[in-house]
């Protein structure tokens, strides 16, 4: 059975490539039983989202300065 190191690796790779059907299935089974990896699977897309928000120029932080 897949361990957490392998599961987090696949979850990370799923941001770069489409996983195969068998990878998806073993990942799904692992994540259903493992709360740590379940949380990790929700955090990975957030990291990407946060990075893109940061990339947009940190404009929200600046907006506050502008309002002052």
């Amino acid at each position, binding site marked *: 059975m897949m*361990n957490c190191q392998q599961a*987090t690796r696949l979850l990370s*790779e799923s941001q770069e490539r489409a996983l195969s059907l068998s990878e998806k299935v073993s990942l799904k089974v692992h994540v259903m039983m493992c709360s740590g990896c379940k949380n990790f699977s929700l955090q990975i897309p957030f990291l990407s989202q946060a*990075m893109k928000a940061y990339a947009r120029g940190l*404009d*929200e932080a600046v907006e506050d*300065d502008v309002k002052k």
Partner: protein
Amino acid sequence: MTRVVPDTPQPEASDISVLSDTAFLTDLRRQMVKFATLQLSNGQHAEDAVQEALMGALKNAKSFGGRAALKTWVFAILKNKIADVLRQKQRMVEASSLLHEDEEAEDFSELFDHKGFWQSDEKPATWGNPQNALHQNQFWKVFELCLEALPGNQARVFMMKEFVELDSGEICNTVGITTSNLNVMLHRSRLRLRECLENTWFLKGERA
């Protein structure tokens, strides 16, 4: 939360004040240099890219409604400059700097036991609704500190992927690593960044 939309310029008298606002420009330049240096691992190239991006944006400063729009624009230009430099500068990470992977191998044993399962105190916790954090200025300070805490190579490939938005093939080509190397580095950088955000933000106060 009102967003300043860059493509609706509202020329005002205040445009001029952006150019004379030394504190704002100094701060903006500092952030750009920090970002470019992390990406290019070369102070001179970083300074050059920032210089060009800033000049280009300031020439058109009049078309921007305010500081936020200007900043968004200037970072978009900088991002493109960096992507250009990276594309020209093949194999910018010398082999020597990739040898640090040995020390980084320890990371996994801190996080996972010998069977590859989470150490009990390293298991990722629930973050609730993390999107709320995106609207808090303090979160971005923490986020920046966590990015800066990543080992140089991990930070670089992670930012190439998620900030400059190069695809995997392009990153591998530029840095001179295999897809498998890249996946290992991205895996590590995500594990670290996640852990840092969890400890310094999402669990702050809950876990002593």
